[in-house]
């Protein structure tokens, strides 16, 4: 029984084993569904030379942007970046390597990585800077490029609920990249809002089966909103 218990009770234990120059895959879209406390633990640890794979890089004082001030990130693989001043400065000065990757290709790189598929053909990016230097092949008269999948030393994800076995359920659009990221880490750490006993989650409703998850920690979240748009109440 205890062999399936993935629960850890400290962030130190959650990120144990993370060392300099590792690759970390992070879930989240913008600031939505990001493992905010796991990122904070990486900041606290001071791990350096990291390659971060994530759709975005947070903002100056929240999310992955927090790892920029101490130069903890050497390279980022992302589809959309630069919502923060320090990111821009480090990118322009060459201190930070940025590999821009189309959003769908990034999601598929994680999915394929977790599924044991080393590479895949996609039309996305063919004939653009993204396709330069990549193998090309034509199928049924259409041109594609070969994109390699990604695996991380660590994957860090945010879910809504977990059971102690590491089965995960996400909430609304905080799901985004988290399910693929969860499959692609040698060590996958999930931080969640609530941990329940096995059997409490409906097996039909589980988004990430616990087999992908190595550690689960319950946290409290700020859940910062990047673009607060509202309409008037009636």
């Amino acid at each position: 029984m205890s062999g399936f218990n993935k629960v850890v009770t400290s962030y130190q234990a959650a990120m144990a084993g993370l060392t300099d120059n590792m690759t970390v895959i992070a879930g989240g879209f913008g600031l939505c569904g990001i493992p905010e406390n796991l990122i904070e633990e990486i900041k606290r640890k001071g791990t350096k030379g990291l390659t971060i794979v994530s759709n975005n890089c947070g903002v100056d004082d929240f999310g992955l942007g927090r790892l920029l001030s101490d130069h903890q990130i050497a390279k980022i693989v992302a589809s959309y970046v630069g919502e923060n001043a320090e990111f821009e400065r480090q990118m322009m000065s060459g201190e930070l390597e940025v590999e821009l990757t189309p959003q769908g290709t990034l999601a598929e790189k994680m999915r394929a990585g977790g599924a044991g598929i080393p590479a895949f053909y996609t039309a996305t990016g063919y004939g653009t800077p993204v396709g330069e230097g990549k193998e090309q092949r034509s199928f049924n008269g259409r041109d594609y490029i070969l994109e390699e999948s990604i695996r991380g030393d660590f994957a860090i994800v945010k879910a809504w609920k977990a059971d102690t076995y590491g089965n995960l359920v996400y909430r609304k659009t905080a799901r985004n990249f988290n399910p693929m990221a969860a499959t692609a880490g040698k060590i996958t750490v999930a931080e969640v809002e609530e941990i329940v006993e096995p059997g409490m989650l409906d097996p039909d409703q589980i988004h990430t089966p616990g087999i992908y998850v190595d550690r689960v920690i319950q946290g409290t979240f700020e859940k910062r909103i990047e673009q607060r748009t509202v309409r008037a109440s009636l």
Partner: protein
Amino acid sequence: MALTREQMAQRVAQELADGYYVNLGIGIPTLVANYVPDDIDVMLQSENGLLGMGEFPTEEELDADLINAGKQTVTMATGASIFSSAESFAMIRGGHVDLTVLGAFEVDVNGNIASYMIPGKLIKGMGGAMDLVAGADNIIVTMTHASKHGESKLLSNCSLPLTGKNCIKKVLTDLAYLEIKEGKFHLLEYAPGVSIEQIQSLTEGELVISDNVREMKIA
């Protein structure tokens, strides 16, 4: 008179059909949602993982876990579904989205589009745009016909790094609605009060005046 942003959105909305799944990019495309005709149902796809995007939330409905691809807080329409980014781009790449509307810096006579990068300036990234243009068959690009300095954005060859190759067939500018085929721009409609000569002079790529060219109707 050149169309306003709102009028451009109104014209694009005329291309919507009942039962369409539609992805709207940031900027003018987003405004299209305000002009969906009352007698049809469309479902908006947001590439961060939401099909059936609703309007902005009230203060009471505000939810940090529910945003659109522009990172704005939104709601879900009746019949909405939520999915992962991989699933979202399976829909997009797999050609399941009926209409994609997005902005651009330039398009050319071969249907190439440049929309994500101006060398020498800050590069923020392509987000989902490369997947959207690669996956969709029915794409409308919305942009101004020329820059503020009067330089055409409808070119014989895009000058900026491409977002996609040979993928754009329709362009709505503030002056005209055009189709791209056989290596030429075909003028289908001109904005009210805009002359064909004016459009011609601001179109650097080869322009053919369609036999059925007509004045654009804006409600």
